[in-house]
Protein backbone atom coordinates (compact mmCIF):
# COMPACT_ATOMS: atom_id res chain seq x y z
CA UNK A 1 0.00 0.00 0.00
CA UNK A 2 1.27 3.43 -0.92
CA UNK A 3 1.46 5.81 2.07
CA UNK A 4 -0.16 8.74 0.29
CA UNK A 5 -3.09 6.58 -0.81
CA UNK A 6 -3.53 5.22 2.68
CA UNK A 7 -3.49 8.67 4.25
CA UNK A 8 -5.88 10.02 1.65
CA UNK A 9 -8.30 7.15 2.20
CA UNK A 10 -8.26 7.59 5.96
CA UNK A 11 -8.75 11.37 5.81
CA UNK A 12 -12.38 11.14 4.79
CA UNK A 13 -14.76 12.41 7.48
CA UNK A 14 -18.29 13.81 7.58
CA UNK A 15 -18.82 17.55 7.41
CA UNK A 16 -20.53 19.27 10.33
CA UNK A 17 -24.27 19.74 10.21
CA UNK A 18 -25.86 23.17 10.62
CA UNK A 19 -26.81 22.11 14.14
CA UNK A 20 -23.21 21.20 14.98
CA UNK A 21 -22.06 24.60 13.82
CA UNK A 22 -24.84 26.43 15.68
CA UNK A 23 -24.00 24.72 18.98
CA UNK A 24 -20.34 25.61 18.65
CA UNK A 25 -21.17 29.16 17.66
CA UNK A 26 -23.38 29.67 20.70
CA UNK A 27 -20.52 28.62 22.96
CA UNK A 28 -18.15 31.00 21.20
CA UNK A 29 -20.63 33.87 21.36
CA UNK A 30 -21.04 33.41 25.10
CA UNK A 31 -17.28 33.41 25.61
CA UNK A 32 -16.66 36.44 23.41
CA UNK A 33 -19.41 38.38 25.13
CA UNK A 34 -17.80 37.81 28.50
CA UNK A 35 -14.40 38.66 27.10
CA UNK A 36 -15.75 41.85 25.48
CA UNK A 37 -17.16 42.91 28.83
CA UNK A 38 -13.80 42.34 30.37
CA UNK A 39 -12.08 44.46 27.71
CA UNK A 40 -14.62 47.25 28.19
CA UNK A 41 -14.25 47.12 31.95
CA UNK A 42 -10.45 47.32 31.75
CA UNK A 43 -10.72 50.30 29.43
CA UNK A 44 -13.05 52.10 31.80
CA UNK A 45 -10.84 51.24 34.73
CA UNK A 46 -7.82 52.63 32.95
CA UNK A 47 -9.69 55.84 32.25
CA UNK A 48 -10.57 56.08 35.93
CA UNK A 49 -6.97 55.47 36.86
CA UNK A 50 -7.44 52.26 38.86
CA UNK A 51 -4.34 50.32 39.81
CA UNK A 52 -3.24 47.22 37.94
CA UNK A 53 -4.09 44.81 40.76
CA UNK A 54 -7.64 46.14 41.00
CA UNK A 55 -8.09 45.79 37.25
CA UNK A 56 -6.78 42.23 37.21
CA UNK A 57 -8.93 41.19 40.14
CA UNK A 58 -12.09 42.58 38.61
CA UNK A 59 -11.29 41.24 35.16
CA UNK A 60 -10.63 37.78 36.58
CA UNK A 61 -14.00 37.76 38.31
CA UNK A 62 -15.71 38.16 34.96
CA UNK A 63 -14.40 34.84 33.72
CA UNK A 64 -15.02 32.84 36.88
CA UNK A 65 -18.49 31.98 35.74
CA UNK A 66 -17.18 30.35 32.59
CA UNK A 67 -14.31 28.39 34.11
CA UNK A 68 -16.19 25.54 35.75
CA UNK A 69 -18.12 24.88 32.59
CA UNK A 70 -14.99 24.65 30.46
CA UNK A 71 -13.26 22.19 32.75
CA UNK A 72 -15.72 19.57 33.87
CA UNK A 73 -14.21 17.26 36.44
CA UNK A 74 -13.96 13.51 36.24
CA UNK A 75 -17.16 11.65 35.67
CA UNK A 76 -18.76 9.65 38.40
CA UNK A 77 -17.66 6.06 38.39
CA UNK A 78 -20.27 4.56 40.68
CA UNK A 79 -23.35 2.81 39.39
CA UNK A 80 -25.39 5.71 40.61
CA UNK A 81 -25.17 8.73 38.34
CA UNK A 82 -25.35 10.94 41.40
CA UNK A 83 -21.95 10.54 42.97
CA UNK A 84 -22.48 12.96 45.82
CA UNK A 85 -23.39 11.36 49.10
CA UNK A 86 -26.61 12.77 50.43
CA UNK A 87 -26.38 14.37 53.81
CA UNK A 88 -30.06 15.00 54.37
CA UNK A 89 -31.62 13.05 57.19
CA UNK A 90 -34.18 10.57 55.91
CA UNK A 91 -37.67 11.60 56.73
CA UNK A 92 -36.47 14.80 58.29
CA UNK A 93 -39.16 17.27 59.14
CA UNK A 94 -36.69 20.13 59.24
CA UNK A 95 -37.17 22.49 56.35
CA UNK A 96 -34.34 22.27 53.88
CA UNK A 97 -31.95 25.15 53.67
CA UNK A 98 -32.51 27.60 50.90
CA UNK A 99 -30.15 27.40 47.96
CA UNK A 100 -27.53 30.07 48.22
CA UNK A 101 -25.74 31.95 45.51
CA UNK A 102 -21.97 31.54 45.71
CA UNK A 103 -20.69 34.91 46.74
CA UNK A 104 -17.37 34.28 45.06
CA UNK A 105 -18.89 34.13 41.60
CA UNK A 106 -20.94 36.74 39.86
CA UNK A 107 -24.44 35.96 38.78
CA UNK A 108 -24.95 36.52 35.10
CA UNK A 109 -28.59 36.81 34.11
CA UNK A 110 -27.72 36.90 30.44
CA UNK A 111 -29.51 34.68 27.97
CA UNK A 112 -26.36 33.87 26.00
CA UNK A 113 -24.72 32.39 29.06
CA UNK A 114 -27.51 29.89 29.40
CA UNK A 115 -26.50 28.42 26.08
CA UNK A 116 -22.95 27.96 27.26
CA UNK A 117 -23.93 26.50 30.61
CA UNK A 118 -26.36 24.04 29.12
CA UNK A 119 -24.04 23.30 26.24
CA UNK A 120 -21.37 22.30 28.74
CA UNK A 121 -23.82 20.32 30.88
CA UNK A 122 -25.13 18.57 27.79
CA UNK A 123 -21.64 17.77 26.62
CA UNK A 124 -20.73 16.39 30.04
CA UNK A 125 -23.90 14.30 30.14
CA UNK A 126 -23.28 13.01 26.64
CA UNK A 127 -19.77 11.78 27.43
CA UNK A 128 -21.01 9.44 30.11
CA UNK A 129 -21.21 5.81 29.10
CA UNK A 130 -24.19 3.76 28.22
CA UNK A 131 -27.55 3.85 29.83
CA UNK A 132 -29.76 1.29 31.47
CA UNK A 133 -31.86 -0.26 28.69
CA UNK A 134 -32.09 -3.64 30.43
CA UNK A 135 -32.36 -2.75 34.12
CA UNK A 136 -35.32 -4.06 36.09
CA UNK A 137 -36.13 -0.96 38.16
CA UNK A 138 -35.06 2.63 38.41
CA UNK A 139 -34.92 3.96 41.95
CA UNK A 140 -34.88 7.64 42.78
CA UNK A 141 -34.53 8.99 46.30
CA UNK A 142 -35.38 12.61 46.85
CA UNK A 143 -36.43 15.02 49.54
CA UNK A 144 -39.05 17.63 48.86
CA UNK A 145 -41.27 20.19 50.44
CA UNK A 146 -44.58 21.57 49.37
CA UNK A 147 -45.80 24.96 50.50
CA UNK A 148 -44.97 25.51 54.13
CA UNK A 149 -45.06 21.79 54.92
CA UNK A 150 -42.16 19.80 56.30
CA UNK A 151 -39.48 18.33 54.11
CA UNK A 152 -40.36 14.77 53.15
CA UNK A 153 -38.25 11.94 51.83
CA UNK A 154 -39.57 10.12 48.78
CA UNK A 155 -38.34 6.90 47.21
CA UNK A 156 -39.80 5.68 43.97
CA UNK A 157 -39.09 2.43 42.13
CA UNK A 158 -40.12 2.61 38.48
CA UNK A 159 -40.48 -0.84 36.96
CA UNK A 160 -39.24 -1.66 33.48
CA UNK A 161 -41.78 -4.41 32.84
CA UNK A 162 -43.10 -5.05 36.34
CA UNK A 163 -45.10 -2.97 38.80
CA UNK A 164 -43.20 -0.33 40.74
CA UNK A 165 -43.52 1.08 44.22
CA UNK A 166 -43.64 4.41 45.98
CA UNK A 167 -42.66 5.31 49.50
CA UNK A 168 -43.79 8.83 50.23
CA UNK A 169 -45.22 9.79 53.62
CA UNK A 170 -47.45 12.44 52.08
CA UNK A 171 -49.07 9.83 49.86
CA UNK A 172 -49.19 6.81 52.10
CA UNK A 173 -47.74 5.74 55.42
CA UNK A 174 -46.59 2.48 53.83
CA UNK A 175 -45.37 1.44 50.41
CA UNK A 176 -47.81 2.03 47.62
CA UNK A 177 -47.89 -0.10 44.44
CA UNK A 178 -47.39 1.64 41.10
CA UNK A 179 -48.17 0.62 37.56
CA UNK A 180 -45.35 -0.37 35.20
CA UNK A 181 -43.01 2.58 34.68
CA UNK A 182 -44.40 5.36 32.54
CA UNK A 183 -42.33 8.48 32.06
CA UNK A 184 -44.37 11.44 30.86
CA UNK A 185 -46.11 9.36 28.26
CA UNK A 186 -43.25 7.01 27.41
CA UNK A 187 -42.56 3.48 28.57
CA UNK A 188 -39.02 2.54 29.53
CA UNK A 189 -38.33 1.06 26.11
CA UNK A 190 -39.92 4.00 24.34
CA UNK A 191 -37.66 6.30 26.34
CA UNK A 192 -34.67 4.48 24.92
CA UNK A 193 -36.12 4.71 21.41
CA UNK A 194 -36.50 8.48 21.53
CA UNK A 195 -34.25 10.39 19.13
CA UNK A 196 -31.07 11.67 20.75
CA UNK A 197 -30.56 14.37 18.16
CA UNK A 198 -31.98 17.34 20.01
CA UNK A 199 -33.80 18.86 17.01
CA UNK A 200 -35.51 15.58 16.21
CA UNK A 201 -36.32 15.03 19.88
CA UNK A 202 -37.83 18.49 20.22
CA UNK A 203 -40.02 17.89 17.18
CA UNK A 204 -41.13 14.59 18.67
CA UNK A 205 -41.89 16.06 22.10
CA UNK A 206 -43.74 19.06 20.71
CA UNK A 207 -45.80 16.76 18.50
CA UNK A 208 -46.66 14.13 21.09
CA UNK A 209 -46.37 15.50 24.59
CA UNK A 210 -47.32 19.16 24.65
CA UNK A 211 -51.02 19.34 25.20
CA UNK A 212 -51.30 21.20 28.49
CA UNK A 213 -52.97 24.50 29.18
CA UNK A 214 -49.85 26.60 29.27
CA UNK A 215 -47.90 27.80 26.29
CA UNK A 216 -45.76 25.23 24.55
CA UNK A 217 -42.43 26.60 25.70
CA UNK A 218 -43.45 26.42 29.35
CA UNK A 219 -44.59 22.85 28.84
CA UNK A 220 -41.38 21.98 27.08
CA UNK A 221 -39.28 23.43 29.90
CA UNK A 222 -41.28 21.40 32.42
CA UNK A 223 -41.01 18.28 30.29
CA UNK A 224 -37.21 18.51 30.15
CA UNK A 225 -37.11 18.28 33.94
CA UNK A 226 -39.78 15.61 34.15
CA UNK A 227 -38.01 13.32 31.71
CA UNK A 228 -34.81 13.55 33.73
CA UNK A 229 -36.08 13.64 37.33
CA UNK A 230 -37.16 10.10 38.10
CA UNK A 231 -36.43 8.26 34.90
CA UNK A 232 -33.63 6.04 33.55
CA UNK A 233 -33.02 8.54 30.72
CA UNK A 234 -29.69 7.54 29.15
CA UNK A 235 -26.88 10.11 28.99
CA UNK A 236 -27.44 10.74 25.29
CA UNK A 237 -31.08 11.60 25.97
CA UNK A 238 -30.13 13.89 28.87
CA UNK A 239 -27.69 15.61 26.55
CA UNK A 240 -30.40 16.21 23.98
CA UNK A 241 -32.84 17.45 26.64
CA UNK A 242 -30.43 20.06 27.97
CA UNK A 243 -29.71 21.17 24.43
CA UNK A 244 -33.44 21.65 23.96
CA UNK A 245 -33.61 23.65 27.21
CA UNK A 246 -30.85 25.92 25.92
CA UNK A 247 -33.03 26.88 22.97
CA UNK A 248 -36.26 27.58 24.83
CA UNK A 249 -36.96 31.33 24.81
CA UNK A 250 -37.10 32.92 28.23
CA UNK A 251 -34.71 30.53 29.98
CA UNK A 252 -32.28 32.53 32.08
CA UNK A 253 -29.18 31.75 34.09
CA UNK A 254 -29.49 32.52 37.78
CA UNK A 255 -25.87 31.63 38.44
CA UNK A 256 -23.62 29.35 40.45
CA UNK A 257 -25.48 28.14 43.53
CA UNK A 258 -25.36 25.47 46.20
CA UNK A 259 -28.44 23.29 46.37
CA UNK A 260 -30.38 22.56 49.54
CA UNK A 261 -27.79 20.06 50.76
CA UNK A 262 -24.80 22.12 49.78
CA UNK A 263 -23.82 20.65 46.45
CA UNK A 264 -22.47 23.16 43.93
CA UNK A 265 -24.58 23.57 40.85
CA UNK A 266 -25.85 25.96 38.24
CA UNK A 267 -29.38 27.30 38.48
CA UNK A 268 -31.49 28.10 35.46
CA UNK A 269 -35.09 29.18 35.48
CA UNK A 270 -37.98 30.11 33.29
CA UNK A 271 -40.82 32.02 34.84
CA UNK A 272 -41.52 30.50 38.24
CA UNK A 273 -39.92 27.17 37.47
CA UNK A 274 -36.26 26.30 37.74
CA UNK A 275 -33.58 23.64 37.87
CA UNK A 276 -30.26 23.27 39.60
CA UNK A 277 -27.98 21.06 37.58
CA UNK A 278 -24.50 19.74 38.02
CA UNK A 279 -22.36 21.14 35.18
CA UNK A 280 -19.88 18.29 35.60
CA UNK A 281 -22.27 15.58 34.50
CA UNK A 282 -25.52 17.24 33.48
CA UNK A 283 -27.42 15.59 36.32
CA UNK A 284 -30.44 17.33 37.76
CA UNK A 285 -29.76 18.11 41.41
CA UNK A 286 -32.92 20.03 42.19
CA UNK A 287 -36.08 21.37 40.60
CA UNK A 288 -38.60 23.82 41.96
CA UNK A 289 -41.75 25.69 41.22
CA UNK A 290 -42.65 29.06 42.62
CA UNK A 291 -45.79 31.13 42.42
CA UNK A 292 -46.47 34.69 41.40
CA UNK A 293 -46.49 35.44 45.12
CA UNK A 294 -43.56 33.59 46.70
CA UNK A 295 -44.23 31.65 49.88
CA UNK A 296 -41.99 33.44 52.37
CA UNK A 297 -42.25 30.75 55.03
CA UNK A 298 -41.32 27.97 52.64
CA UNK A 299 -37.70 26.92 52.15
CA UNK A 300 -36.22 28.97 49.37
CA UNK A 301 -39.48 30.89 49.02
CA UNK A 302 -40.75 28.31 46.56
CA UNK A 303 -44.04 26.50 46.46
CA UNK A 304 -42.46 23.13 45.73
CA UNK A 305 -38.87 21.98 45.62
CA UNK A 306 -37.42 18.50 45.15
CA UNK A 307 -33.80 17.64 45.82
CA UNK A 308 -32.54 14.48 44.16
CA UNK A 309 -30.30 12.54 46.49
CA UNK A 310 -29.71 9.23 44.73
CA UNK A 311 -30.77 7.64 41.50
CA UNK A 312 -29.79 4.48 39.75
CA UNK A 313 -30.80 1.00 38.56
CA UNK A 314 -31.78 -1.67 41.09
CA UNK A 315 -32.80 -5.30 40.73
CA UNK A 316 -35.95 -5.28 42.82
CA UNK A 317 -38.62 -3.15 44.42
CA UNK A 318 -40.21 -3.65 47.84
CA UNK A 319 -43.60 -5.26 48.12
CA UNK A 320 -46.53 -2.94 48.66
CA UNK A 321 -47.94 -2.71 52.14
CA UNK A 322 -51.67 -2.59 52.88
CA UNK A 323 -53.33 0.64 51.93
CA UNK A 324 -53.03 3.24 54.63
CA UNK A 325 -53.54 6.93 55.15
CA UNK A 326 -50.91 9.51 54.38
CA UNK A 327 -49.21 11.24 57.28
CA UNK A 328 -50.03 14.75 56.11
Amino acid at each position, binding site marked *: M*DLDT*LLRDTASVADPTAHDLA*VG*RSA*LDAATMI*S*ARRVAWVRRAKRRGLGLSAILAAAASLVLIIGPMLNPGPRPTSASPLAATPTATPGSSTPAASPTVDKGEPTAPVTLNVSLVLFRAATAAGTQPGGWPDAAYWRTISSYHQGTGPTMRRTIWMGHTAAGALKDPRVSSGIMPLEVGFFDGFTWDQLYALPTDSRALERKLRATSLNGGRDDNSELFTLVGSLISESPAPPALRKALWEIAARIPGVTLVGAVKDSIGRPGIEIRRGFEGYVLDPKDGQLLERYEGTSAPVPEAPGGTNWRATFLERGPVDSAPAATPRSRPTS
Partner: protein
Amino acid sequence: MTGSELSDTDLLVASRTRPEMLGVVYERHAPAVYRYLGRRVGVGAAEDLLGEVFVAAVAARLRVRPHDSGSALPWLYGIAGNVVRSHQRRSQRHVPVDKVVAVDWDAVDERLDAGSRRQELRVALAGLTEAEREVLLLVAWEGLSPTEAAQALGLTQVAARSRLHRARTRAQATLSDMTPAGL
Protein backbone atom coordinates in the same frame (compact mmCIF):
# COMPACT_ATOMS: atom_id res chain seq x y z
CA MET B 1 -17.07 46.91 9.92
CA THR B 2 -18.15 43.29 10.21
CA GLY B 3 -14.70 41.87 9.72
CA SER B 4 -15.67 39.62 6.84
CA GLU B 5 -13.44 41.63 4.52
CA LEU B 6 -10.40 41.23 6.78
CA SER B 7 -7.69 38.60 6.46
CA ASP B 8 -7.23 35.98 9.16
CA THR B 9 -4.14 37.82 10.34
CA ASP B 10 -6.01 41.12 10.65
CA LEU B 11 -8.88 39.38 12.45
CA LEU B 12 -6.58 37.79 14.99
CA VAL B 13 -4.89 41.11 15.66
CA ALA B 14 -8.24 42.91 15.95
CA SER B 15 -9.64 40.20 18.21
CA ARG B 16 -7.27 41.19 21.00
CA THR B 17 -9.47 44.17 21.76
CA ARG B 18 -12.56 43.05 19.84
CA PRO B 19 -13.06 39.36 20.68
CA GLU B 20 -16.24 39.24 18.63
CA MET B 21 -13.99 39.20 15.55
CA LEU B 22 -13.41 35.53 16.32
CA GLY B 23 -16.96 34.99 15.09
CA VAL B 24 -15.72 35.68 11.57
CA VAL B 25 -12.84 33.27 12.10
CA TYR B 26 -15.41 30.73 13.26
CA GLU B 27 -17.52 31.13 10.14
CA ARG B 28 -14.45 30.61 7.99
CA HIS B 29 -12.79 27.73 9.77
CA ALA B 30 -15.24 25.90 12.02
CA PRO B 31 -15.92 23.18 9.40
CA ALA B 32 -12.19 22.47 9.02
CA VAL B 33 -11.70 22.35 12.79
CA TYR B 34 -14.70 20.03 13.06
CA ARG B 35 -13.16 17.69 10.51
CA TYR B 36 -9.85 17.78 12.39
CA LEU B 37 -11.73 16.75 15.52
CA GLY B 38 -13.79 14.15 13.68
CA ARG B 39 -10.66 12.45 12.32
CA ARG B 40 -9.25 12.07 15.82
CA VAL B 41 -12.20 11.52 18.14
CA GLY B 42 -15.13 10.68 15.86
CA VAL B 43 -17.89 12.99 14.72
CA GLY B 44 -19.99 12.48 17.85
CA ALA B 45 -17.35 13.92 20.12
CA ALA B 46 -16.35 16.48 17.48
CA GLU B 47 -19.78 18.06 17.82
CA ASP B 48 -19.14 18.49 21.53
CA LEU B 49 -15.59 19.74 21.26
CA LEU B 50 -15.98 22.25 18.43
CA GLY B 51 -17.28 24.99 20.74
CA GLU B 52 -14.62 24.13 23.30
CA VAL B 53 -11.85 24.81 20.76
CA PHE B 54 -13.18 28.25 19.94
CA VAL B 55 -13.90 29.13 23.56
CA ALA B 56 -10.25 28.27 24.29
CA ALA B 57 -9.30 30.44 21.33
CA VAL B 58 -10.94 33.45 22.99
CA ALA B 59 -8.43 33.22 25.83
CA ALA B 60 -5.55 32.21 23.58
CA ARG B 61 -6.04 35.11 21.15
CA LEU B 62 -3.99 37.39 23.38
CA ARG B 63 -0.93 35.21 22.83
CA VAL B 64 -1.35 34.36 19.14
CA ARG B 65 1.36 35.27 16.67
CA PRO B 66 -0.16 35.24 13.17
CA HIS B 67 1.52 32.89 10.75
CA ASP B 68 3.24 34.08 7.57
CA SER B 69 0.78 32.03 5.52
CA GLY B 70 -2.00 34.33 6.71
CA SER B 71 -4.22 31.42 7.80
CA ALA B 72 -5.58 31.03 11.32
CA LEU B 73 -5.89 27.29 10.86
CA PRO B 74 -2.44 26.26 12.14
CA TRP B 75 -3.16 28.16 15.33
CA LEU B 76 -6.63 26.63 15.64
CA TYR B 77 -5.29 23.11 15.05
CA GLY B 78 -2.75 23.67 17.81
CA ILE B 79 -5.58 24.55 20.19
CA ALA B 80 -7.71 21.68 18.89
CA GLY B 81 -4.86 19.24 19.59
CA ASN B 82 -4.81 20.37 23.22
CA VAL B 83 -8.58 20.09 23.48
CA VAL B 84 -8.49 16.56 22.05
CA ARG B 85 -5.83 15.47 24.51
CA SER B 86 -7.78 17.00 27.38
CA HIS B 87 -10.93 15.24 26.17
CA GLN B 88 -9.15 11.92 26.07
CA ARG B 89 -7.77 12.41 29.57
CA ARG B 90 -11.32 13.01 30.78
CA SER B 91 -12.59 10.05 28.84
CA GLN B 92 -12.47 6.64 30.40
CA ARG B 93 -12.14 4.95 27.06
CA HIS B 94 -8.93 3.18 26.20
CA VAL B 95 -6.98 4.72 23.37
CA PRO B 96 -5.27 1.78 21.71
CA VAL B 97 -2.23 3.19 19.92
CA ASP B 98 -1.13 6.29 21.78
CA LYS B 99 -2.50 9.25 23.61
CA VAL B 100 0.10 11.72 22.46
CA VAL B 101 -0.87 11.81 18.82
CA ALA B 102 -4.45 11.99 20.04
CA VAL B 103 -6.12 9.60 17.65
CA ASP B 104 -9.03 7.55 18.92
CA TRP B 105 -8.72 4.43 16.83
CA ASP B 106 -12.22 3.27 17.58
CA ALA B 107 -13.47 6.51 16.08
CA VAL B 108 -11.19 6.09 13.09
CA ASP B 109 -12.49 2.59 12.67
CA GLU B 110 -16.07 3.81 12.55
CA ARG B 111 -15.48 5.92 9.48
CA LEU B 112 -13.44 3.48 7.45
CA ASP B 113 -15.16 1.00 5.22
CA ALA B 114 -12.30 -1.45 5.37
CA GLY B 115 -10.78 -2.58 8.65
CA SER B 116 -7.54 -3.58 6.96
CA ARG B 117 -6.70 0.03 6.04
CA ARG B 118 -7.21 1.11 9.61
CA GLN B 119 -4.88 -1.66 10.70
CA GLU B 120 -2.32 -0.63 8.11
CA LEU B 121 -2.45 2.95 9.28
CA ARG B 122 -2.07 1.92 12.89
CA VAL B 123 0.98 -0.16 12.11
CA ALA B 124 2.52 2.50 9.91
CA LEU B 125 2.09 5.23 12.53
CA ALA B 126 3.04 3.07 15.47
CA GLY B 127 6.66 3.08 14.37
CA LEU B 128 6.91 6.87 14.42
CA THR B 129 7.65 9.23 17.24
CA GLU B 130 4.83 11.41 18.48
CA ALA B 131 6.21 14.49 16.77
CA GLU B 132 6.63 12.62 13.51
CA ARG B 133 3.08 11.31 13.62
CA GLU B 134 1.57 14.69 14.38
CA VAL B 135 3.37 16.55 11.64
CA LEU B 136 2.56 13.78 9.15
CA LEU B 137 -1.17 13.86 9.96
CA LEU B 138 -1.41 17.65 9.99
CA VAL B 139 0.07 17.74 6.50
CA ALA B 140 -1.71 14.66 5.11
CA TRP B 141 -5.13 14.91 6.80
CA GLU B 142 -5.51 18.64 7.38
CA GLY B 143 -3.67 19.86 4.30
CA LEU B 144 -1.27 22.15 6.12
CA SER B 145 2.05 23.08 4.63
CA PRO B 146 5.09 21.93 6.62
CA THR B 147 5.67 25.48 7.84
CA GLU B 148 2.04 25.76 8.97
CA ALA B 149 2.34 22.42 10.75
CA ALA B 150 5.44 23.78 12.44
CA GLN B 151 3.41 26.63 13.90
CA ALA B 152 0.63 24.31 15.05
CA LEU B 153 3.15 22.15 16.88
CA GLY B 154 5.42 24.91 18.13
CA LEU B 155 8.38 23.67 16.08
CA THR B 156 10.87 25.44 13.88
CA GLN B 157 10.30 25.07 10.15
CA VAL B 158 13.50 23.09 9.79
CA ALA B 159 12.49 20.69 12.56
CA ALA B 160 9.02 20.19 11.08
CA ARG B 161 10.38 19.47 7.60
CA SER B 162 12.96 17.10 8.99
CA ARG B 163 10.37 15.20 11.02
CA LEU B 164 7.97 15.05 8.12
CA HIS B 165 10.66 13.57 5.91
CA ARG B 166 11.59 10.97 8.50
CA ALA B 167 7.94 10.15 9.14
CA ARG B 168 7.18 9.58 5.49
CA THR B 169 10.26 7.48 4.91
CA ARG B 170 9.73 5.26 7.93
CA ALA B 171 5.97 4.89 7.51
CA GLN B 172 6.37 3.94 3.84
CA ALA B 173 9.09 1.45 4.74
CA THR B 174 6.83 -0.12 7.34
CA LEU B 175 4.01 -0.39 4.84
CA SER B 176 6.28 -1.97 2.24
CA ASP B 177 7.45 -4.56 4.74
CA MET B 178 3.93 -5.56 5.66
CA THR B 179 2.76 -8.84 4.20
CA PRO B 180 -0.88 -9.56 3.47
CA ALA B 181 -0.87 -12.18 6.19
CA GLY B 182 0.14 -9.61 8.70
CA LEU B 183 -2.77 -7.28 7.96
